[in-house]
């Protein structure tokens, strides 16, 4: 029996829609997790959904975006799907952190390429895979672990 306790959002792949889905996902996450954790979940959802709009569908404006939230069990799961271009192999799971900069050296600071690194760091588990012709990013956030922002990086 499939898990029935999910909320699925379908929207046109645009930045305004990403904002509204982010706000909704946070409101739902706040029902299950602390406000600070819910903010991180909104952030990760927005990062991945923004990538769909900017990279997967670049230019082509008639794409659709699906975000599925499963607030059940030990994990709060967020799955983002698009039917655009696949992420180039090796992009996700790349080990170099953009946050490994020297704060005194302005040239070393990242202006982009931070989204996937944030998700890898903040989700307890994150996986990217293809499902038929869709790209799926699946993020799992622990509901029991109490995480401090200072735990990251």
């Amino acid at each position: 029996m499939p898990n029935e306790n999910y909320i699925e959002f379908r929207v046109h792949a645009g930045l305004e829609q990403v904002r509204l889905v982010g706000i909704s996902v946070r409101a739902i996450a706040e029902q299950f997790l602390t406000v600070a954790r819910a903010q991180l979940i909104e952030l990760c959802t927005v990062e991945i959904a923004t990538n769909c709009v900017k990279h997967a569908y670049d230019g082509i404006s008639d794409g659709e975006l699906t975000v599925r939230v499963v607030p059940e069990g030990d994990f709060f799961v967020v799955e983002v799907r698009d039917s655009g271009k696949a992420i180039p192999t090796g992009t996700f799971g790349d080990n170099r952190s953009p946050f490994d900069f020297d704060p005194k050296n302005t040239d070393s600071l990242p202006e982009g390429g931070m989204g996937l690194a944030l998700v890898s760091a903040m989700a307890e588990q994150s996986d990217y895979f293809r499902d038929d012709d869709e790209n799926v990013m699946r993020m799992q956030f622990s509901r029991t672990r109490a995480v401090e922002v200072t735990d990251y990086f």
Partner: protein
Amino acid sequence: MKLEDNKCGNALVIKLVGDRLDAAAAPGFKETVTRRIDDGEDTILLDLSLVDFIDSSGLGALVSVLKRMSPAGKLVVCGLRDAAFNMFRLTRMDKVFPIFPSQAEALTALEA
């Protein structure tokens, strides 16, 4: 996103009027602030007190304008709400940008 400019002594105070510095808002923010820097402003205070969401695109725009400053210039931020402050800490940008609680405290420090 709307930006409100306000000159205080040498400093240009730029207040972000909007609650999100995200991928939709970042390009406009970056363009406007870059123009001010290119016009000669070298002491800039960004008031983020209305912002309750910053994503990596917003942060990227902040880094961009920081890189645009002349080496002698100063760019500081103030008024960070919880979510924004967390984003700075998460990404270690709290070690890069001088952060002040309020405009008044930032301005005092900039004048010193």
